[in-house]
């Protein structure tokens, strides 16, 4: 295990200390708990948006806490849910009287804890709504969308909700656009190498030197085909086709594209992938409003990538175009 770290059991807390030290004017904590990260400033009457999830996915989840995106994030151990108590503390800290929206990925532990936190928040008289992101088409067939894992596409859900909340819209409205984004995004990934959970110390799965797994999840969940490493163009074809057919995305549609690196895959390779994505979309008459390429949801040092499409309507386009500014993501106003 080649990691630049100190003791494995301090991995998450030392990372958080580093993040807070690096961004002292942007982030702070709630309840004196390092694992309850909240935005430094507050906007009266704004709906609060909270997320939460396991560590090891930077910039997910806490990296999107900031202007135009999220207000708070509870942070779990590596690939572990934070506790409902931590979620509650974040909820209390970010509520401005307008209620709080939870946006998180579709994983058992997170769901149970966010549900528990919701119940506790109710007791504290804070209105809470939830939107669960699950858009990995490899993880469950069409018709069983509710079982799908949440992966990089949650970025778009955050962005839409964050921009809407900034207009001081109601909790219902913020939830509506978050759900709309969640409903219109689809993702497929490919993994080339595993990653290692610091406290475990060895990879949770193995892939041979010339192997890849299409559809693998960001914690190493099984994919839909394991086989020899193919060319970039072939890999993209195998990833993009199921995505296109699922929603489906077709002629005349306008999309935003997210090519996400899982950790160890160089940007060079992501752009080689995008080249093919662009060809295919152009061929199908699907126009591209905006392309995001980089690391948005990682698995530490895992090599691999995912491709997400978000189908846009005028409202989502406008929300996506709004500026954002977090320690891990900056965007100026996009021209429409």
């Amino acid at each position, binding site marked *: 295990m080649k990691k630049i770290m100190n003791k494995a059991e301090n991995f998450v807390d030392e990372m958080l200390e580093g993040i807070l030290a690096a961004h002292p004017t942007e982030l702070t904590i709630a309840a004196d708990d390092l694992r309850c990260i909240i935005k430094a400033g507050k906007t009266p009457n704004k709906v609060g948006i909270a997320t939460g999830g396991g560590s090891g996915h930077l910039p997910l989840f806490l990296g999107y806490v900031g202007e135009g995106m999220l207000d708070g994030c509870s942070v779990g151990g590596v*690939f572990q849910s934070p*506790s409902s*108590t931590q979620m509650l503390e974040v909820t209390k800290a970010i509520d401005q009287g307008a209620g709080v929206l939870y946006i998180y990925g579709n994983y058992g532990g997170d769901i149970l*804890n966010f549900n528990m936190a919701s119940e506790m928040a109710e007791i504290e008289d804070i209105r809470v709504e939830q939107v669960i992101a699950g858009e990995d088409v490899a993880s469950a067939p069409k018709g069983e969308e509710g079982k799908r894992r949440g992966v990089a596409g949650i970025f778009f859900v955050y962005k839409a909700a964050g921009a809407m909340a900034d207009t001081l819209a109601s909790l219902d409205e913020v939830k509506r656009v978050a759900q709309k984004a969640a409903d219109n995004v689809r993702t497929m990934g490919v993994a080339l190498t595993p990653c290692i959970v610091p406290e475990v110390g060895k990879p949770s799965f193995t892939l041979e030197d010339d192997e890849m797994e299409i559809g693998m999840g960001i*914690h190493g969940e099984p994919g839909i085909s394991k086989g020899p490493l193919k060319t970039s163009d072939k890999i993209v074809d195998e990833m993009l086709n199921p995505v296109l057919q699922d929603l489906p995305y077709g002629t005349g549609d306008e999309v935003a594209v997210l090519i996400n690196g899982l950790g160890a895959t160089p940007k060079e390779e992501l752009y080689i992938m995008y080249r093919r994505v662009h060809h295919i979309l152009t061929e199908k008459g699907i126009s591209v409003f905006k392309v995001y390429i980089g690391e948005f949801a990682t698995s530490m040092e895992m090599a691999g990538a995912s491709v997400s499409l978000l189908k846009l309507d005028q409202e989502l386009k406008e929300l996506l175009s709004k500026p954002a500014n977090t320690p891990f993501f900056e965007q100026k106003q996009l021209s429409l």
Partner: protein
Amino acid sequence: MNTIGLNELKTIFDGLKKLMDEKREYLIELDGVMGDSDLGITMQKAFTAANEEVQSSGEQDLGKLLMKTGMKIAQAAPSTMGTLVATGFMKGGKALFKTETISSKELAVFFRAFTQGIMDAGKTVPGNKTIVDALHPATLALEDAASGNKSIPEALKLAYEAAIGGVEASKQMKAQHGRAAYYQDKSIGVQDPGATVGAFIFQAFSEAANSGK
């Protein structure tokens, strides 16, 4: 152990903790097959925290104590199983509010609420290859024994055996929840780690009750 008071509860939780310590590597391995290999670690954390709470508490209302114990578990082990077990203790405890001694009847009430709480939180029913598949038959056996006026040691022994049967039965089920569900049909034939934890809970209860009798 004819009835369970605070002292007996301390014995039971001490046993629960020791059993989870002992089964740590086994659970890690089981969860490694279709999960993320953390179950041994989280269960150890969960029952270490639970045991600390029970041992240090002077709370005579056992319902309250069990509920608080659940809350401690929720903080210490926020994984799927940790949170479900926490929910179980919280809901089970709530059903025993204002109880200072537990007979086999109260024990059945406790585990009914425990199991129902987990089913509600997990949005699941028996048959989906989860902890419920151990808890549910065990609870039925417990209820049966209680209405037959069996003693606590006897009732828990029968419940534990039913739980073991549930674990066996779970092997042939197809996973509908959690990481194992991604394996779909491939999950058939594999033993469910969560059901195994369910059986361990009854094992510890039964062994504590049967050790001194």
